[in-house]
């Protein structure tokens, strides 16, 4: 007999019910199966009505974040055998409204990414000077922001962040890390443009260094570090504009 494990899966069918319930499914427990493989087994063999997001199944597209036994994880990278003998409780990511079953509503998050202006703001006084027309950027300069460019937008950090949980207007870890990814890029001159968003009411000061975003991040981005570093920048700029109002305007 093949070993099996029980999945307790949160179901929410908005046409039928006003709040989520749990349904249990038994799936094979195989060494190489991720929680996502278990869900796919349910979908293909047991219950076609289960809805969830997934795509690359190699931890890079960021689709399949869910809450498994209380922790925010990528289900393609969390293995059933690590939860044996079970049961494994699969719920949608926390801190987001639920559309259906394991699918959360993420327009707020995507909107926030845009709000921090995540693109290169060119410095007209420093055009590209490489032989092929590229901006020169040494490996050390690349290293400055590289970590922050590794975010896959999986939203596990928002799910782990109590500040975002209590107040959805907080810009949040991934968006701040994304802003820092551009602020610290040697090709960018958009620091001032992003400041209003980052140091404003919904910006970095909402964070009190809980650190759960960094522990939840599956890609080692360290949003908590990004936020603390930006606090120093924001404080310095605020002090500058207080002491030298005209210099800061320039």
């Amino acid at each position, binding site marked *: 007999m093949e070993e099996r494990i029980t999945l307790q899966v949160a179901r929410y069918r908005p046409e039928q019910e006003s709040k989520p319930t749990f349904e249990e499914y038994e799936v094979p427990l195989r060494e190489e199966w991720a929680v996502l493989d278990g869900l796919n087994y349910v979908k293909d063999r047991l219950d076609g009505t289960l809805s969830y997001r997934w795509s690359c199944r190699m931890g890079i597209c960021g689709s399949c974040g869910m809450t498994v036994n209380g922790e925010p994880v990528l289900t393609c990278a969390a293995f059933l055998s690590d939860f044996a003998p079970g049961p494994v409780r699969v719920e949608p990511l926390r801190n987001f409204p639920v559309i259906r079953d394991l699918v959360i509503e993420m327009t707020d998050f995507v909107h926030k990414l845009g709000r921090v202006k995540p693109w290169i703001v060119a410095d007209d006084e420093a055009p590209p000077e490489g032989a092929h027309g590229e901006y020169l950027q040494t490996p050390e300069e690349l290293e400055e922001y590289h970590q922050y460019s590794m975010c896959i937008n999986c939203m596990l950090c928002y799910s782990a962040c109590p500040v975002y949980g209590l107040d959805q207007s907080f810009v949040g870890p991934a968006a701040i890390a994304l802003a820092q990814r551009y602020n610290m890029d040697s090709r960018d001159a958009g620091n001032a443009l992003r400041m209003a968003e980052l140091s404003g009411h919904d910006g970095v000061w909402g964070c*009190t260094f809980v650190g759960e975003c960094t522990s939840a991040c599956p890609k080692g981005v360290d949003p908590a570090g990004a936020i603390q570093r930006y606090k120093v920048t924001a404080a310095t700029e605020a002090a500058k504009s207080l002491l030298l109002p005209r210099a800061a305007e320039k």
Partner: protein
Amino acid sequence: MSTSTDPGFQARLYRPPVPRFWWARRRSYLLFILRELSSLFVAWFVAYLLVLAYAVGQSESAYQRFLDWSANPFMIALNAVALGFAVLHAVTFFQAAPQATVVRLRGRRVPPTLLAGPIFAAWVVVSGFLIWLVVLA
């Protein structure tokens, strides 16, 4: 152009309520809530300090009354709790500081955890000096 209107289903989002004891889920959440709470006690210390300064400025007897007032068990308990929160605040700050500062050694960033050591050591030394100054000297 008009085609048949299809309203579909107006997605009714489920917004999970925040459980009353959500902060008990994790140590870090508990610390977060305690830190939020700590602002009250930090504010208390500020007020306390102002009262102290005022008393010192008045007269020696006023200062003595302040000391007597401070010596009652309730005040000692309150200040002990406030001290606890202030320490929590300080520890958080000293943990965050290395994350926020980038120190480079031979072109490589020194890991924040390594930076934390000296900061805490400096804190202990300064505190030790103050204790010596105020209590022992």
